[in-house]
């Protein structure tokens, strides 16, 4: 029945680009027009004489286009999303509701901003308490932005001391943003091995310490899900050397109410609100990467800072002469910050503790169910996540990529793959605390099925996924053909894909 295909575009294009619906006159949206719409003559030379190049599409078409696009996307609300180190937990709906309230507030509108600042000051206190740190800056817009901010603080501390230390030690399990952030902050990085047991040993750190070392940047629990058991010793070594301990708090979800970075000897850390504190990831942001420091480093934090004369208003102050300066135009991703506050007070101290305990329980349960069927590169006990490899399946030619893609057909998002880099063919699995037992079991069953298929019918796995909106996507072709806008498509068009 070839006729069907000719009218059903699904064989060629699932959802045509919006621009293909565009025809002059189709958009009929009417706008508020309080003013006589005339542009003064003196502006004419500055104006674009041509039509603005946007698609001209009716509201119903736009709505359907994006509705259909949304339906081609997988989110946490559809099923388990065990993306290691990303903490894809359930995003409480009440947080979304409350954040909506500030939508119409302009940041120069003093009176409502007082309420906002009061709430933000409370968030600072909560994060300080949770992390055991002395001071907090909420403005970094994501984890990497927090890293940069924190490392600029460290840099500034040395500059103020008159020391010029240029090296940051980074374990080989670190996330790519760590070295990248250090580079922007003007440091060079030195990669150090995390050791055979999957955690950094104090002896290793000691061996790398010299007067050029400004800091060590450590993730705890690290990206193998392993607690850095020697962190306190490491902190002492660093401090004795005049260096700082920076902690990447991306994995804080393992230890809320259980162990605090401040107590570990951490001088500076960032947390990821869009991981640990349940704010949605939004398909790639906005997030929140607050930075916390011990009192010694407080004066270097970014401006503005929230100040509060008791019984008076909360206001912003820029009068911190030692500050590294501003890191973001305003107050960071304010509505994300608000969601994090709601999350924290919705749960309270017991709830946060239960979250972490359960995150660890869930990960260990999954590990227990999977460890006999997949290669487990480290025997050390893990907390909220764990890493498997494709070593065994490789024998049948099945890679981590194949298994990740196969998982999709069972209705799961795959784990983080090929990271951390120290593990070849890594699958980094972080279920989070909000996965029910039934979903963990379904996931484990799927993994075991895939392992069995890898052993018995390996060929079929290369063709996965089959039940997704599109089948395996050609990333190489994307990089080679490099079509990044619809104009490029039009200009290179062979007629095959655009219409």
């Amino acid at each position, binding site marked *: 029945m070839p006729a069907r295909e000719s009218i059903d575009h699904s064989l060629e294009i699932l959802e045509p680009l919006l621009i293909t619906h565009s025809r002059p006159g189709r958009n009929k949206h009417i706008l508020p027009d309080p003013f006589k719409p005339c542009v003064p003559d003196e502006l004419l030379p500055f*104006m674009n004489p041509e039509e603005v190049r946007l698609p001209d599409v009716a509201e119903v078409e736009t*709505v359907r286009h994006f509705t259909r696009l949304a339906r081609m996307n997988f989110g946490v609300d559809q099923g388990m999303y065990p993306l290691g180190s990303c903490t894809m937990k359930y995003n409480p709906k009440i947080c979304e509701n409350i954040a909506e309230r500030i939508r119409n507030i302009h940041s120069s509108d003093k009176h409502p901003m007082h309420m906002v600042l009061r709430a933000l000051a409370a968030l600072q206190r909560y994060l300080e308490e949770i992390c055991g740190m002395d001071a907090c800056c909420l403005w970094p817009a994501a984890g990497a932005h927090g890293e940069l901010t924190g490392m600029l603080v460290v840099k500034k501390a040395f500059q103020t001391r008159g020391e010029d230390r240029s090296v940051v030690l980074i374990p080989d399990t670190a996330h790519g943003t760590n070295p990248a952030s250090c580079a922007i902050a003007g440091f060079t990085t030195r990669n150090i091995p995390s050791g055979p047991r999957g955690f950094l040993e104090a002896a290793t750190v000691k061996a790398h310490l010299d007067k050029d070392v400004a800091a060590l940047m450590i993730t705890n629990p690290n990206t193998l899900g392993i607690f850095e058991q020697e962190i306190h010793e490491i902190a002492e070594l660093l401090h004795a050397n005049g260096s700082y301990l920076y902690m990447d708090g991306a994995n804080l979800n393992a230890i809320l109410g259980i162990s605090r970075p401040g107590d570990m000897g951490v001088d500076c850390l960032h947390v990821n609100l869009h991981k640990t504190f349940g704010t949605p990831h*939004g398909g790639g942001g906005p997030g929140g990467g607050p930075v916390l420091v011990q009192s010694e480093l407080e004066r270097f934090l970014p401006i503005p800072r929230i100040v509060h004369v008791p019984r008076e208003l909360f206001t912003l102050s820029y009068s911190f002469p030692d500050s590294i300066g501003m890191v973001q135009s305003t*107050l960071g991703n304010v509505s994300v910050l608000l969601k994090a506050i709601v999350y924290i007070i919705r749960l309270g101290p017991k709830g946060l503790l239960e979250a972490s305990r359960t995150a660890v329980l869930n990960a260990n349960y999954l590990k227990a169910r999977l460890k006999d069927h997949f290669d487990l590169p480290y025997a050390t006990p893990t907390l909220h996540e764990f890493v498997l490899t494709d070593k065994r399946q490789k024998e049948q030619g099945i890679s981590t990529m194949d298994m990740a893609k196969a998982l999709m057909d069972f209705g799961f998002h795959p784990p983080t793959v090929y990271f951390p880099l120290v593990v070849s063919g890594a699958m980094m699995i972080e279920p989070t605390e909000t996965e029910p037992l039934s979903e963990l079991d379904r996931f484990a069953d799927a993994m075991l099925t895939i392992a069995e298929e890898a052993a018995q019918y390996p060929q079929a796995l290369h063709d996965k996924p089959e039940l997704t909106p599109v089948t395996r996507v050609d990333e190489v072709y994307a990089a080679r053909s490099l079509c990044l806008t619809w104009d490029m498509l039009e200009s290179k068009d062979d007629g095959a894909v655009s219409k």
Partner: protein
Amino acid sequence: MSFVPHDQADRQHMLETIGIQDEEELFATIPQNLRLTQRLKIPGPLDEENIRRIPQGQFSHVCFAGGGIYRHHIPAMVDALANRQEFYTSYTPYQPEISQGVLQSIFEFQSMMAALTGMYVSNASLYDGATALAEAALMAIRAKQIKRVLVTRATNPRFRSVLKTYLDNTGVKLQEIPFDMASGQVERFSLERLNGEDAALFVQNPNFFGILEPMDCIAKFARQSAFWGIVVSEAVSLGLLKRPGDYGPDCVVGEAQSFGNPPNAGGPLLGFMCTTKEHLRRMPGRVVGLTKDSRGRQAFCLTLATREQHIRREKATSNICTNEGLCAIRAALYLAAMGPRGLRAVATQCVAGAHQILQLIQQVGRQPVFKGPFFHEFVVQLDADKRKALEDDGIIPGVPIEYYYPEIKNGLLVAVTEMNTREDWKCLLENL
């Protein structure tokens, strides 16, 4: 309270499967001295209704505040779709087979941003306009052997502050080009004097005062610098003004909050960067490309990953990872909803309104500080007491700028958009 779905039996079964007696054993690797012994001192748990009762500020309805964050009409459609769970509860689209929704939306965002700015390519977003400018400066450093970054002093002061923070440790000098106190435009002599082959030049247009810079003239000078970029702080201006790309810059960066993202007490914002083919591989941030699936169907995926931190680590074009994806999707929705005439109409309302209101203000005896042509913002002088009195009455007459520009005593930046009603300006004028 927690969002943990387990009952006691579930936990028991799990412990048995793991092969331990007590959940405590799971934490054995955490040294005892690093354990927290008391409960965290934070409030809660709170039920939803008590959370809903937390007092909320009432925003001022009469508002002429702009200065980098603008109140614009947002079609109802934008929220209806951006709030789809599939969009907001997903991660960065690393797995394209189940992320076509986010990917195609961002591809369309890129397409529209590139078309609006007149540039070859756009990335998938940056944190905000300020970091976008900073990233552009870092890109210039990677691209050329520059010693200085020049920025006009009439560029958003918050952008310049962040730029300074980012450049502090690069060894590159930051210099500001003053503005002409009469016109509010860049001072041409200074521009000529400072400009040079060892410098990257950045110019915001319309500038922070709302003034339109003499772009043709600037472009001529700019060609002599190693790299130059145009900064856009009010994206709606792209709906009416000549496309910045037409002046031939190396990049166009800035803030696109105006595209479908509410002021939100300051954020999230939407940084963007558009650049040329030449600089494509130096560009920071995510990029979505068109490709095909194994059955030959059109599909999208993240591409050019070799620029990024997860591959290149310390040599990456940027450290950015999580960006402002949902804000970019909102921008795509907004631009789709507005269409070509809509965006132009909004820009026209802004311009027309600002000029009409300034005229009325002049009639009551206040003169604008600058005489240059302007878009939808202008600077007047208003003493602080008067301004505070207005604010206490729920009228925000503008954003005070003396802190940033001490030479403009009592300077007030007034922004007008299509959201200002007739009642608004009557109210403003009567109380001025």
